[in-house]
């Protein structure tokens, strides 16, 4: 191996990478926020007794389970824009794709959590005169949350890593910044190694956080 490492080139690019990291974090958090809402809506549809809503939610889940995120991003940003004339900002397009796909995953997590609450809880609540909305909001969902939180935290880690894919449509997040820096310096190994390490460190941090949450949940 006659490659000479030049990690010192990174020195001029730290703020450049930091800016990318900030956008990665920003996109991840916003996308997660919307994914949580989408997931809740889809799971409620899935568990409802209204046939149209059930079919809609099932289709949603199957479509987004089946479509690779990479394909979805390109389809939305280039394909759909061509047909509909809607030109999303790259960041907006990225957030839409991430939140819609992960909303589908979350819907299944929610569904499992809600179904894990015993039927007797619904019945006791109905018998006391609670409406279906109050039953869900006050009795069922608070119990389901305990079951939902650990897998949701893990899913957020997945979303955080998936966000690297939006570099393909020119969002200046961490991966994209790293690519640009590479093309300017011809130092792919150095930049991509550091980028990978940043992802790993943050993922480690998040998974520790998830573990802590899980521990707290099981103690309650």
């Amino acid at each position, binding site marked *: 191996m006659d490659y000479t490492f030049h990690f010192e080139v990174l020195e001029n690019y730290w703020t450049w990478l930091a800016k990318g990291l900030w956008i990665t974090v920003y996109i991840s958090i916003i996308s997660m926020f919307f994914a949580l809402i989408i997931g809740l809506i889809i799971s409620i549809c899935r568990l409802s007794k209204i046939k149209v809503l059930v079919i809609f939610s099932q289709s949603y889940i199957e479509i987004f389970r089946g479509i690779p995120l990479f394909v979805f991003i390109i389809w939305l940003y280039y394909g759909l824009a061509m047909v509909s004339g809607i030109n999303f900002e790259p960041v907006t397009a990225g957030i839409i794709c991430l939140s819609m796909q992960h909303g589908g995953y979350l819907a299944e997590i929610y569904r499992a959590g809600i179904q894990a609450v*015993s039927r*007797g*809880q619904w*019945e*006791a*609540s*109905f*018998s*006391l*005169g*609670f*409406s279906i909305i*109050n039953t869900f909001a*006050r*009795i069922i969902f*608070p*119990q389901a949350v305990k079951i939902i939180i650990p897998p949701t935290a893990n899913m957020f880690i997945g979303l955080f890593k998936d966000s690297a894919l939006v570099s393909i449509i020119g969002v200046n997040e961490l991966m994209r910044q790293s690519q640009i820096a590479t093309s300017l310096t011809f130092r792919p190994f150095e930049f991509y190694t550091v980028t990978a390490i940043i992802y790993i460190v943050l993922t480690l941090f998040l998974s520790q956080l998830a573990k802590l949450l899980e521990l707290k949940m099981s103690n309650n």
Partner: protein
Amino acid sequence: MDKNIITVDKVKKYFSEILVLNDVSLKIQRSNVVVICGPSGCGKSTLLRCINGLEGLNSGDIIINDKSILDKNKLRAIRLELGMVFQQFNLFPHKTVLENIILSPIINLGINKDEAIANGRKLLERVGILQKENDFPSSLSGGQQQRVAIARGLAMQPKIMMFDEPTSALDPEMIKEVLDVMIELAHDGMTMIVVTHEMGFAKEVADKIVMMDEGSIIEESEPKEFFGNPKNNRTKLFLSKILN
């Protein structure tokens, strides 16, 4: 006003293809205690669940305090008049004992919180577990949980209390503490429908005992008659099994 607070009229109920209630008719008067018994699978629990609308009917009607269970707009009003106690207690595990009791009166009856708490404490005292008001249900014994469940039902000031095998999930030594609460309630004049195998309880407080088998009521009589001179052979067989 009808002297019957509950009228079950020719109710049929299927679970998919299986007929679980076959033309069941039953009248229950105010302040009466009606005990429903019968072998498992006879439809006794289903009948209770039909009365408070947890199960729909395939045909027939149930009138509760002049309101039909078939009227979807009245379902909640009916449920507010019916207290229900389940075999598995079904307390809300994420709420304390007191919160379990006051939540519904506050939300569904619009009672203010202080009043609901005062009322809830009175009920907890009545069922003998005031000292546990800030505990979570999981730290209570089965008998204690069931007494909380009874207090939770009573907090809604229902006109009728229904019990679906309230002691079947309890250890033997805890059965009495729950039955004692129920007996006291009966003596206070509460209208009660109790699905149970506790024949001692039935003898002591029931005004009427209803025997069900295979989805039908096969015998309906006062305790003296029911235990002393049962007419139906299946009742005799059931009694011989359960009393020995």
